[in-house]
């Protein structure tokens, strides 16, 4: 049995990540980033756009081996990922897209519940080209959970959705992460959403990116009221601007 012991937590240490820009000069995007996240908890990476959030996520997913540092994925390392764009296979139906992510040897798993929670029941036979962005995002989320992840990565899964759809999807996400107890790392630029969903917040600096402020939030997540979110938000904004000023001086 998997216990929530030390072995299961997520550890991400990126000493340095450099990429070659178009004109051939090396650009350091991440330097000295250290992140630890308890097993089963939900962490949010918050940072200005262009600070390398997606780069960090790709490294965490094991999709980019070209960096100095190390990663320890939680649990058995089964990964579920929701990319910023849904990245569905347009030539496969919604159901096939979801099923293809099932762990090997478990291709006939019952997905009724997952599909029910995400409201995809009547769209299973459709192709991604026929879906709205909201439905495509839901399919991508369903696929990530179908992989039965120990480790879930979400890259801005709510961008360019209208507020009502995004709010529903957030609730569904909270319900699913609670039930599956996947260790989740969520990348966003939206502080309020991060506060609403997370157990722990990680604020990123500008390039080269590192974590400047870290903050645990009191449970339970997902049900924080508007006022609570706003007051935590104000507090965090002050902390972050102070830390940014300090690091600029130093």
């Amino acid at each position, binding site marked *: 049995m998997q216990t929530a012991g030390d072995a299961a937590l997520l550890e991400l240490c990126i000493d340095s990540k450099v990429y070659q820009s178009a004109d051939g000069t090396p650009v350091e995007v991440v330097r000295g980033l250290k992140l630890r996240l308890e097993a089963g908890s939900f962490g949010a990476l918050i940072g200005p756009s262009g600070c390398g959030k997606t780069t960090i996520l790709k490294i965490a997913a094991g999709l980019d081996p070209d960096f100095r540092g190390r990663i320890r994925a939680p649990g058995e390392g089964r990964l579920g990922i929701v990319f910023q764009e849904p990245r569905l296979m347009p030539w496969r139906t919604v159901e096939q897209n979801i099923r293809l992510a099932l762990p090997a040897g478990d291709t006939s798993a019952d997905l009724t519940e997952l599909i029910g929670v995400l409201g995809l029941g009547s769209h299973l036979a459709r192709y991604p080209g*026929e879906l709205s962005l909201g439905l495509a995002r839901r399919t991508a989320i369903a696929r990530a959970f179908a992989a039965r992840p120990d480790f879930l990565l979400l890259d801005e899964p709510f961008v360019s959705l209208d507020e009502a759809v995004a709010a529903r999807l957030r609730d569904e996400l909270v319900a699913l992460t609670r039930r599956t107890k996947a260790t989740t790392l969520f990348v966003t630029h939206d502080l309020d959403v991060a506060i609403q969903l997370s157990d722990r917040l990680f604020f990123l600096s500008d390039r080269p990116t590192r974590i400047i402020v870290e903050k645990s939030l009191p449970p339970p997540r997902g049900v924080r009221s508007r006022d609570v979110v706003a007051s935590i938000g104000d507090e965090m904004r002050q902390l972050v601007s102070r830390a940014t000023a300090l690091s600029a001086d130093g």
Partner: protein
Amino acid sequence: MTRIYSLAVLMAVWAVIAALVQSRLLPGPLTVGATILAEVRSGELPYQMACTLARVICSFAIAMVLGIIAGYAMGRSKTADRYADPWLIVLINMPALVTIIFTYVWIGLNETAAILAVAVNKLPNVIVVIREGARALDPELDEMAKAFKFTWFSRIRHVTVPQLVPYLAACSRSGLSIVWKIVLVVELLGRPNGVGFVLGSAFSLFDMTQILSYAISFIVLMLVVEGYLVQPLERRANRWRRRPA
């Protein structure tokens, strides 16, 4: 409907000109039709067509398989592309006739040489098209497949092949027509049977009725293959695309 009408007009023009000219060198549609019927009854035409068709299928299959492998490798690996590209350029610019002569001289006047000659003629075209397709593969879907630990087989089947379908369709379409044209030349030069051989013999006798009846029969056969095999396959592969309204 328009197509049938258009073909009927073509036949009518042919019939009128043939009737006006009244020459042994331009038989009318009726004469040619009668010859085709007689040749079918005697079993001669089905036999010769089967010989040609078998060669078409073999050389087409060889060219496609080798071309897909080489094209994919060249599209995915810059090193492979740099090394193999000069070979490809030589191959592309090699006249079909030269390849045919080389294989007949080096391998001998046999079936292997005939099929190989045709396959080698078709090969560079497949490589070029599939290379473009492999270059256009979406790296984001690759990442997705890697993140979800797709097996090697399901990556090929669900991610790579569907993206290559338009390229496969393009080169099999153009391929089929190139291949059967070259097969006829190969047969003319060094085989004792097949439509190309019959056309060669008919040419030496100036037997235009024979030439027209075999040519037309083979065109019809290829249209049937196109309409009942290539197009339905393509439609099936493209059923996920939204049809234009």
